């Protein structure tokens, strides 16, 4: 036995990832305590950031890891929102119980949807998901019990049920949004570290090679699609719990729930777990400084996204990672020399 063979080991964590973990916990503690120090408007903005972060991470899992480029995730955002309203209004469920149920229903409806649109490949798959979102929008516009085309509001009694005081209610929705983002990040992180995650990474890098290793590509993609749909529907339920009002056009808006989300992921760095976090920060900084410009702001966003895609297709984080090898979430395996 040579000694050199034992001088190395495989490790996933690095100094950067350990520092990031500690920093992450500190940030989380600060954020959890926000109802104590933040104003009403700040908390609303933070909640929105968390929910966009959750949507962005989910879309990134779908497009960046499973190679399923969807431009129809608004189907599940809107579906989740409508399920929350339907369960609360018709079944009298408390919103807290309705949110996970909305997620479950989102995953269930994603099964037949996936069976149908998985027949389309690549870019045609993308437009196929859009058709599904349109079908959802037009169908919900036909349900007169939910207000038809003009939509409906969450009854005051149901909102009051959530918590006694207004500030407590706002704190609850804030914590729910934060919890949603944390759950999504945790689920994706654990998935990517698992055996299935390894398969997904292999599929991302080369479908042909991974198939020849015996990976069932269809099944892996199917599982990711259904899981993403469920979590997206839960996020959608939370989004519309915050808005307290839902209408088909708002619920199934391609701009709000897909275009912005894609920009966040592309700017931050597709196919990395850190990318959506960076992207969501950049997106909201841009939005808060430029939103007075109205449509011009959207023009700028479109130009920035195209420029990033052409000049730095890996996004901000991907470019940084390529140059420095930095990784905040310990996913990659690396060879480390033992200290002994």
């Amino acid at each position, binding site marked *: 036995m040579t000694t050199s063979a034992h001088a190395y080991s495989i490790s996933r964590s690095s100094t950067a990832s350990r520092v990031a973990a500690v920093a992450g916990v500190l940030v989380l503690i600060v954020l959890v305590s926000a109802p104590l120090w933040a104003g009403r408007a700040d908390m609303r903005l933070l909640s929105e950031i968390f929910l966009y972060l959750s949507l962005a991470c989910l879309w990134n899992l779908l497009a960046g890891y499973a190679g399923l480029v969807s431009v129809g995730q608004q189907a599940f955002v809107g579906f989740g929102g409508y399920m929350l309203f339907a369960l609360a209004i018709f079944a009298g469920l408390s919103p807290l119980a309705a949110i996970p149920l909305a997620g479950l229903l989102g995953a269930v409806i994603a099964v037949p949807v996936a069976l149908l649109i998985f027949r389309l490949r690549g*870019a045609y798959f993308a437009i196929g998901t859009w*058709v599904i979102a349109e079908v959802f929008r037009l169908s919900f516009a036909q349900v007169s019990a939910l207000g038809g085309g003009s939509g409906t509001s969450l009854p005051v009694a149901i909102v009051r049920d959530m918590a006694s005081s207004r500030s407590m209610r706002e704190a609850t929705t804030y914590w729910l949004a934060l919890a949603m983002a944390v759950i999504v990040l945790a689920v994706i992180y654990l998935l990517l570290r698992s055996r299935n995650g390894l398969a997904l990474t292999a599929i991302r890098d080369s479908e042909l090679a991974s198939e020849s290793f015996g990976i069932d590509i269809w099944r892996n993609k199917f599982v990711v699609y259904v899981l993403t749909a469920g979590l997206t529907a839960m996020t959608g339920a939370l989004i519309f719990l915050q808005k307290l009002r839902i209408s088909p056009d708002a619920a199934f808006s391609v701009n709000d729930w897909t275009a912005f989300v894609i920009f966040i992921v592309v700017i931050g760095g597709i196919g990395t777990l850190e990318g959506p976090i960076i992207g969501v920060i950049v997106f909201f900084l841009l939005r808060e400084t430029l939103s007075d410009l109205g449509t011009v702001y959207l023009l700028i966003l479109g130009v920035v996204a195209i420029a990033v895609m*052409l000049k730095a297709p890996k996004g901000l984080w991907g470019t940084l990672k390529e140059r420095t090898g930095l990784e905040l979430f310990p996913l990659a395996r690396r060879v480390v020399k033992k200290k002994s």
Partner: protein
Amino acid sequence: MDWINAILQGILLGGLYALFAAGLSLIFGVMRLVNIAHGDFIVLAAFLGLTITTTLGLSPLLALILVVPVMAGIGYGLQRLVLNQTLGDDILPPLLVTFGLSVIIQNGLLEIYSADPQKISAGALETASVALPGDLNIGVLPLLMFGVAVAVIAGLQWIFYRSALGRAFRAVSDKQDIAQLMGLNKAHIFGLAMALSLAVVGLAGVFLGIRTSFDPSIGPGRLIFGFEAVIIGGLGNLWGTLIGGIILGVSQNIGAQINPGWQLLAGHIAFLIVLAVRPRGLFPRID
């Protein structure tokens, strides 16, 4: 009789959908590119037609003489300057870049023309109709559009299979590197394909503008109609695309006949049924 009328109008409407679809089908065939901004280019062409008819006082059909070459020029420039950089094995860059383009066109039009619905006026042509036996009337305009759609499909079919340009299209489509070795400049050929695609879009846009009112937000809807026509008809089959457009138009009109709210839904459902039963479309080209 209402039903026969609905079906007849649906067939004619299908011609317009085939025009939406033809350009989409063409560039996918040549370079496997799906242009998410395709519908927004249709709306852009409609606004271009509107501006030309109102400022120059031309009739919309004459305006086509300007709109079509301008759109073709935009297509060539766009392909050479932007889209050629995105082509490769990865489908993500072209998708996301054209998605960004879609947002830019929509908001650009919104900035210039506002969100108000507009319509291109075609004068007496709009109301002219031909009487058919059995109390049926067919508008001259829908008939003209259908005729143009058939002519465009036939023309594209001829270019693709009978002309030197079409041979170049097929060559780069089959094997880009070998085509390049044989002296074809693929960047230029792709530019020409996009120019041709947007020339058809120019036609489609002006017809759309004469037929119905339009505003900057309706582009994605037109993309979806075109896409559905392509998939129903079968990938790579231009005549199939025409039939796909007709099936879509007829389903929408039958849906509207049952309940006005079901018009669009019926079209989408027809598409989903075809996808479930014949995932390769009704008339796939045999590869």
